[in-house]
């Protein structure tokens, strides 16, 4: 039980107390607070985008920049993995 273990236990207890306190004070499960943007998306997704799937129209049309960033992260991860296992042919 050296100093590092005692510090880790204190840190874990503080994080657990903060999380439990915030879970008690959150709004009840099933009644979201402000949902004007999602109501607009559900009502207008068949005329503006022309798709039946609400989630795909959010991923590719209303929030397309996040998909662009995610494609970049996937490409960087594949490039990193191939680069680690490269064999230099002399």
């Amino acid at each position: 039980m050296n100093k590092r273990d005692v510090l880790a236990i204190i840190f874990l207890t503080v994080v657990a107390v903060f999380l439990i306190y915030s879970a008690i004070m959150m709004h009840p499960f099933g009644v979201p607070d402000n949902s004007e943007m999602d109501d607009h998306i559900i009502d207008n997704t068949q005329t503006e985008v022309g798709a039946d799937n609400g989630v795909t129209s959010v991923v590719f049309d209303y929030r397309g920049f996040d998909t662009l960033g995610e494609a970049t992260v996937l490409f960087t991860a594949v490039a990193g993995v191939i680069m680690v296992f490269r064999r230099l042919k002399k």
Partner: protein
Amino acid sequence: MIYNIPYFAVIGLIIIGLYAVLFKRNLIKMVIGITLIESGVNLFLITLGYREGSTAPIYTLSPGGIMSMPVPQALTLTSIVIGVAVLALMLSFIIHIYRHYKTLDVGKIGGDEE
């Protein structure tokens, strides 16, 4: 307060993941702890967008009624893919470390420059 059970499941996942990262000496067990924390955060994102008695926000063959919010589900999709990418990179670094040091114990790698 009894209706906040999904939030307590999220807290359980995050605390177990934090315990595995802080108190274990093996590298693979630390990676499993990081994956547990990411699963807890994804579950928390999905439970934020639920309405009482609603169905999926898809119009094909839908049984009518109110629909749940589609934006948190889209954000969770992105988060899951990023978690997979980070996990692949961490595991390839562990294979490279094992080839060089011949051990997976955190206290014995690195540090000594002769």
